[in-house]
């Protein structure tokens, strides 16, 4: 089937239908002010708001890209970056099949998910210690072997 | 009965019953009136009954300046709620669909926000009209059960419609069912109350115009 035989649909996007774009942007503005004044962070779940086709893109395009860009690899990739509005972060979680499983706008100094977690650090410390122990043992063995030769 | 069953009933058998009573009642009342007939006028005519009658059907909508001044509230409030009812009933998209379903053609609708505002104005006006009826010595004196019943069944669909539109308090199917039910109540009561004036005033005005016009006066 060629493209010409398909009905041409022109679903309206952009200003004509952006009934939730402006409110969300204003919500971000309020959250940023709150962050500055009280230090309190906020999160907006973009997937819990009814958006017309293209509206999510409009919001993301409006926010743009800032200085920090991070990639996470935890149960599938996640993309985290600061928008051109400092303090406003966009967090997109993907599953292992690369479909989006969550998209959040976090208004914070630094997103929690990027911080190293206590439990993970405990495990990391354990592991490091184990590995060091293992390394020193093997070092000793090597030295011993050298001495023996 | 679940709310969907109720909604289906009011849209189905309920609406059938209401339509039968409404249409049958109106035709019955009109023919009951027309069948009584009136005697031919044997006096020599000075003007035309027909043209004067037809003119009065429309001209009586607008009062003369002094009458307007004397009955300013009645006329103004009357205008507001009658126009409001017209707009809400006939220019709301879902309602137009109903008419289209029955008569086969529709017409453009007004934005629902306009309808919403009109409904609020109409409801408020009807409430004021009731208060006025209860306080004005003449209206209070003249009013009987029929007048209050007519008022009640008129404002009820407006209120239930407003609530259904804004989904206040209950789920949408129940609210819409209640709204349709209130309209059905209006339809059932309509032919046997004052509400019949919607149709009989055409006859009444025509007769008035004809009686005057025959004598050469435009009423």
């Amino acid at each position, binding site marked *: 089937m060629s493209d010409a035989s398909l009905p041409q649909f022109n679903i309206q996007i952009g200003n004509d239908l952006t009934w939730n774009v402006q409110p969300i942007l204003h919500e971000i503005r309020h959250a940023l002010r709150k962050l500055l004044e009280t230090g309190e962070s906020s999160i907006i779940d973009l997937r819990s708001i009814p958006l017309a086709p293209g509206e999510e893109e409009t919001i993301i395009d409006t926010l743009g890209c800032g200085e920090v860009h991070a990639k996470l690899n935890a*149960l599938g990739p996640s993309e985290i970056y600061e928008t051109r509005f400092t303090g406003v972060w966009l967090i997109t979680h993907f599953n292992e099949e690369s479909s989006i499983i969550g998209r959040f706008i976090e208004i914070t100094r630094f997103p929690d998910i990027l911080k190293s977690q206590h439990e993970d650090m405990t495990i990391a410390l354990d592991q490091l210690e184990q590995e060091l122990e293992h390394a020193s043992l093997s070092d000793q063995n090597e030295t011993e072997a050298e001495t023996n030769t | 009965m679940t709310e969907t069953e109720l909604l289906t009933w009011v849209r189905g058998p309920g609406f059938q019953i209401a339509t039968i009573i409404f249409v049958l009642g109106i035709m019955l009342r009109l023919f009951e009136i027309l069948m009584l007939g009136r005697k031919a006028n044997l006096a020599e005519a000075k003007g035309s009954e027909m043209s004067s009658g037809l003119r009065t059907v429309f001209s009586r909508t607008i009062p003369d300046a002094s009458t307007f001044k004397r009955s300013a509230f009645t006329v103004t409030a009357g205008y507001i709620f009658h126009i409001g009812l017209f707009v809400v009933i006939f220019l709301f998209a879902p309602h137009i669909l109903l008419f289209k379903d029955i008569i086969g053609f529709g017409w453009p609708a007004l934005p629902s926000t306009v309808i919403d505002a009109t409904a609020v104005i109409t409801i408020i006006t009807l409430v004021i009209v009731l208060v006025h009826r209860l306080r004005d010595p003449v209206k209070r004196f003249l009013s009987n059960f029929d007048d209050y019943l007519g008022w009640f069944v008129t404002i009820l669909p407006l209120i239930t419609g407003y609530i259904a539109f804004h989904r206040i308090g209950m789920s949408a199917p129940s609210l819409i069912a209640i709204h349709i039910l209130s309209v059905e109540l209006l339809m059932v009561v309509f032919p046997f109350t004052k509400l019949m004036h919607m149709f009989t005033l055409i006859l009444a005005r025509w007769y008035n115009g004809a009686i005057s016009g025959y004598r050469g006066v435009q009423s």
Partner: protein
Amino acid sequence: MTNDLSRKDKTLGETLRSQGISRRSFLKFCAATASMMALPPSMIPTIANALEKARRPSVIWLSFQECTGCTESLTRAHTATVESLIFDSISLDYHHTLQAAAGHAAEAAREAAMEENNGKYLLVVDGSIPLDNPGYSTIAGISNYDMLMDTARGAAAIISVGTCAAFGGIPHAKPNPTGAVSVSDIIKDKPIINVPGCPPIPVVITGVLTHFLTFGTIPELDNLGRPKTFYGQSIHDRCYRRPFYDKGLFAETFDDEGARLGWCLYKLGCKGPTSYNACATTKWNGGVSFPIEAGHPCLGCSEPDFWDGGGFYKAISMPTENITKTTIYAAAAGVAVGVAVGATGRMKKASASKAHQKVTIDDLEK
């Protein structure tokens, strides 16, 4: 879905850690879960805390008069990672479509799970139950009714998945040949969560399971037993085409200018205004789209008796029956009765004229 006892005693947090899943991954999972359950992001820490301590419940899934669409929907849940985690964290002890065991072994598994978890297991039901003749639908020779009553007895709660289990669904549609009823029609003494939809949105099914898993409680329900988080608002209220409704811009046919421009589908029979579901926000196929976005009116599949609502393509404000004919007949009858009544009035008037006694000046006083 293995059923080893050692895992059953562990909390979800322990299970995940033993699988080498990092805390950061767990937080991401919790964020996705919160989003899925339509809970505010501020709930993420609470969810993390609860999930950490959650233990695997036993789940028994019974399928009665159904089309397996609900199971199909569930197994196509898009958030594959999350789903697998959820399913890893429950013990699905009986599901005759998904389980490997068959025949007597399957029934034995069910009975064993019931006995072992008496009073604690979660019962999931899809499909309606025929009351007319038990022979209409049986499993291993057991009638649906008997199996439901037997299994429900020891359940902590019941989740009715799909419109058939929740409200009777298509088997219940007129004329309802099998005498189909919903779970809540026959079970009155257990908490029942209705998750209607034909089929329900997959993440709504997992969302409800996750809620139970997370909080161990039943979510807040509406008057039809549906979780308010997913069924709290009508499709119409959350529909991105709502602004067109408010402006009075409607598609009149499926291929007119309005349809092309994506206008409101109310006139094409959209049941959005009377239907409560999460389609407009959660959407389908991994948040890709939902029927209205695809240009088709909502059928209202999450509502009771949506099959009998007077036609999928008839607007809600339209009567379900042919009113034109009714109007014509009623008008004709009205004219006939009016003429008849009017004629008796006329006769009455004539007899009054006949009874008229001439008024002379002597007749003006009593």
